[in-house]
């Protein structure tokens, strides 16, 4: 009964006119910021932060939260249409979303990712409503050893993320790790690969890397293409957003798995939506009976990560609100918005400020419904972007990339890095090196290192620390199983692939025209 009372209280707060208005404002701004490549949620929230000084704390938080999950909704748009991640969490959506758009299925991709986003967010909100205190307690059981084991499992599971040459994939992953290591070593303050530059001490930003390797490289590649009209005009009509029955059938399980993984990673401070998206993509590919479709427009490859990043967005509020511990810089900002009003989040927040807590959570429903209503009609508008001639579209996109890269950390160095990575990405395209393992290595490598070294320090140098702690031991055992499975299974996969080769060739024909 108390539970229903809480939900009622929450809705009574969330459905007040002011709160609906600010929720709408947040969601709208979030969508726009998400759609514009590179302009991240942190920059958007930072800019609007002073506005919250003058709002009620609940209203302020509702608006900021709207921006936060709105960007992830909108972020898939640029990933799919332009191969430019709207936010880091949407970077992995480029891998299959962009090929879908090139096949004239951009509308379907946008529609389905909206569905996946809503599904993932709903999943996260339900968990948030039912289990916040319980989850907060369990998240505390994850120490450095567990984080390391999780990252290792992710890396092993993802080792087949790329197509083609295994050596090239591995080389790119190592390069990603090296780029990830740029900056100040967190345990000894040694500067690594910074070449004396103070700016590089902060490390390379994921958004600069992703925009360069995917976006700028794409733009350079397209210089040789002159017109956009090789896109089938039918594919930009609103009716073209209707998924096929096959799309729907393929989407259910990835959405469910993505939401589960996303919710899990969202609750762990320091991981969050980007990692959830990357790993759920890797898992889908590993579980797929047809992994060769990934990277060529497989719908599973956009559904899982989009469900994952949106559910992680929601569950990220669990540690923030119930432990008072922000999982990311953006969450720290939200805590800041509360503290400015004299409210310190922590274990007593739910009982001290029930209106704020339940009002905020119920506003997530309001916000997600608003986003759904907002996004579906917009698909028609976004898809039309593809009919803009490249010579007009891409210069403006490049401008947005520069703005985005600059505002990511208010540093001009980032803009140069985007172009350096653009050149790298172009070279990678020419020599057929895959981009996905580079990003994965970049995201997971430094985290693994950080947690590994901290775990070893805390374990007083004993490797057994990874096996003595029960949760860590279970994850390590699972990692071992995945490794065995891939060695043992690779023969079978090779067999299956040759079987499918002929049918796949037949499948490709109808799409060839639009490529």
């Amino acid at each position, binding site marked *: 009964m108390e539970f229903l009372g809480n939900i009622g209280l929450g809705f009574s707060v969330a459905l007040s006119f002011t709160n609906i208005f600010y929720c709408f404002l947040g969601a709208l701004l979030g969508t726009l910021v998400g759609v514009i490549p590179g302009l991240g949620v942190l920059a958007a929230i*930072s800019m609007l932060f002073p506005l919250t000084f003058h709002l009620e704390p609940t209203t302020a938080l509702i608006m900021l939260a709207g921006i936060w999950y709105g960007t992830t909704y909108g972020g898939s748009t640029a990933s799919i249409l332009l191969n430019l991640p709207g936010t880091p969490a949407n970077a992995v959506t480029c891998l299959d979303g962009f090929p879908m758009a090139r096949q004239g299925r951009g509308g379907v991709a946008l529609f389905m990712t909206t569905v996946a986003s809503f599904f993932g967010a709903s999943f996260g909100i339900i968990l948030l409503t039912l289990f916040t205190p319980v989850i907060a307690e369990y998240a505390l059981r994850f120490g450095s050893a567990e984080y390391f084991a999780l990252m290792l499992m992710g890396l092993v599971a993802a080792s087949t993320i790329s197509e083609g040459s295994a050596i090239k994939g591995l080389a790119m992953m190592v390069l990603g790790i090296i780029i990830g290591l740029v900056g100040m070593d967190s345990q000894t303050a*040694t500067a690594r690969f910074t070449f004396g530059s103070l700016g590089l001490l902060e490390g390379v930003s994921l958004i600069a890397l992703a925009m360069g390797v995917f976006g700028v490289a794409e733009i350079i590649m397209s210089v040789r293409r002159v017109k956009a009209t090789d896109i089938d005009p039918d594919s930009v009509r609103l009716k073209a957003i209707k998924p096929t029955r096959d799309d729907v059938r393929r989407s259910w399980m990835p959405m469910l798995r993505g939401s589960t993984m996303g919710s899990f990673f969202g609750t762990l401070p320091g991981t969050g939506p980007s990692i959830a998206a990357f790993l759920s993509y890797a898992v889908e590919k590993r579980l797929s009976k047809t992994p060769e479709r990934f990277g060529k427009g497989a719908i599973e490859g956009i559904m899982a990560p989009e469900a994952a990043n949106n559910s992680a967005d929601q569950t990220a509020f669990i540690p923030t609100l119930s432990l008072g511990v922000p999982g990311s810089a953006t969450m720290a900002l939200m805590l800041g918005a509360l503290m*400015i009003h004299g409210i310190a989040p922590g274990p007593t927040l739910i009982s001290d400020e029930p209106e704020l807590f339940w009002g905020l959570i119920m506003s997530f429903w309001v916000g997600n419904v608003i986003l759904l209503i907002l996004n579906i009609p917009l698909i028609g508008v976004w898809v039309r972007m593809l009919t803009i001639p490249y010579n007009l579209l891409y210069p403006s996109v490049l401008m947005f990339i520069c703005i985005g890269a600059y505002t990511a950390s208010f540093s001009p160095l980032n803009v140069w890095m985007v172009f350096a990575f653009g050149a790298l990405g172009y070279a990678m395209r020419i020599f057929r090196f895959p981009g996905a393992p580079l990003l994965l290595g970049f995201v997971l490598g430094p985290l693994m290192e950080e947690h590994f070294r*901290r775990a070893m320090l805390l374990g007083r140098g004993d490797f057994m620390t990874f096996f003595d702690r029960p949760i860590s031991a279970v994850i390590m055992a699972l990692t071992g199983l995945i490794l065995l499975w891939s060695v043992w299974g690779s023969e079978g996969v090779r067999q299956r692939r040759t079987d499918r080769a002929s049918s796949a060739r037949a499948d490709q024909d109808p799409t060839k025209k639009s490529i």
Partner: protein
Amino acid sequence: MKKFITAAVAALGFALPAMAADYPSGPVTIVIPYSPSGNTDVFARHLAPYLEEKWGQAVVVDNKPGGGSMIGTAYVSQAKPDGQTLLMTSSAFVTAPAIQKELPFDSRTDLVPIVNVGHVSFVLIVNGESPYQTLEEFVAASKESPKFAATAGLGTTTHFAMEKFIVDSGADVEVVHFKGGGPAVVSILSNETDIYGSSISSAGKNIEAGKVRPLMVLGNERIDVIPDVPSAGELGYPDLEIKQWLGVFAPKGTDPEILAKINADVNEALANQEFIDTVTPLDWTLNGGTSEAFVTQVDEELTKWQALADAAGIKK
């Protein structure tokens, strides 16, 4: 010749006061070497309107983050010394030089401290279910079996606080670095580490809920919000006076009269009740005071942290 000297003296005598009286002659930029909305940034953005009103000029808060605050600091050290570009930075100004060797400026000479605007206090916390009720018990227990101290990152104020605590108390404790204060508090909640010098704002609710237990304030006075927690001075650690402060600096060579004017005007803003009411919920204790006092403080701290970094073998 005589005429010329008279003219020169007159001109000089005229020019100097005019410069200070005219100050500021255009928009003033306060450079914040941190990202928007960090606590330094928020403080500066709250302070700016008061100075704007006083000076009748726009006061722009400009974020130049990076290099652990060193990029923005280096930027101001090279700015024109006319008082139109100021720096508001944290005690990273005195701690970072102790671990970062190749800075493009000299923290002792290239910037002039104007005023210490405020500080955040730290408190040593342990897990709420740990057996240690007093700091003495903790120190004694660490000698039986060694303990771990969390920090918010290498070279942060919390890192120096923990190193200083280890040196002064003789506790057998090893520091482990986390990325930020949040994860460090989590490591105390989850028993991954044993002790952490947390800012009051990060620890606040968890202290109230009994999830963490405060053992000692890192300073020589008790704090209002946790009146029962002893100060470092009371427990016999008078040197554990460690605060994260915030101060205003100008490039070297700035006219002393302009510096004096900025000092006076900032002090006036700090005394404004409306301003006090906005920033105290953010756990700031406002300081103010003369620039001489701040110059001495910065100088002493630079020496103190360098000595600690050398003694504790913190790598450079």
